């Protein structure tokens, strides 16, 4: 039982990867998964204040539940257009 985490742009450059799988834990939420990721990769901590999140391609909040097999995307401030 895992959760897939996607990183983009500045986060992907800071982490050195664009995708990672972490084991899922009981009652996991977006915020809890994010915090475990940052525990392993402290270079990502500075992005947290302006991060948005998506679970399975829908915007989500830090307290959104994360189910087994879900995909969590960490979304820094967008700059398309």
């Amino acid at each position: 039982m895992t959760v897939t985490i996607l990183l983009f742009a500045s986060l992907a450059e800071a982490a050195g990867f664009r995708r990672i799988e972490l084991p899922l834990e009981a009652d996991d939420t977006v915020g809890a998964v994010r915090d475990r990721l940052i525990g392993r990769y402290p270079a990502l901590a500075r992005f947290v204040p302006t991060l948005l999140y998506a679970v399975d391609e829908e915007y989500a909040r830090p307290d959104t539940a994360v189910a087994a097999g879900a995909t969590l995307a960490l979304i820094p401030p967008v700059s398309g257009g």
Partner: protein
Amino acid sequence: MLIRVTPDVLEPGPAIAAVESPSAGAIDIFLGVVRDNNLGRRVQYLVYDAYPAMAEKVMSAIAGEAKERFGLEAVAVLHRTGRLEIGETSLLIAVSCGHRKASFEGCHWLVDEIKKRVPVWKKEVWDDGEEWVEGPESLGLQQAPASMRS
């Protein structure tokens, strides 16, 4: 609705064809183009990253909202990814409508919303460095406490 995130060159022709309709009297097309400068710095080129599957979902949602809100007949939204040179088109929007006023307002609103919430990012590459741009209109920056914004 033509909605696409793609590394291919964006051409207006297919987007216009996608919004044509016998009852549309006005078509407005917006091209976001790579400029040779930003905030006083000379830009060499841009690199766009995206979360394509989600970006297309969000673009579809925004396009549907625009149709409803402005009474548009049809909408096309395309965003390019990868390395873009000066003068190349990064964003292409086309809308059709019975009358012109709503076509301009709807197209303008679409650009504004895309810059707020579509998961696409650009890196500016200058003569002496590079940086991922944090869009000043992005929801991430708008929602962060003021003290976090540089």
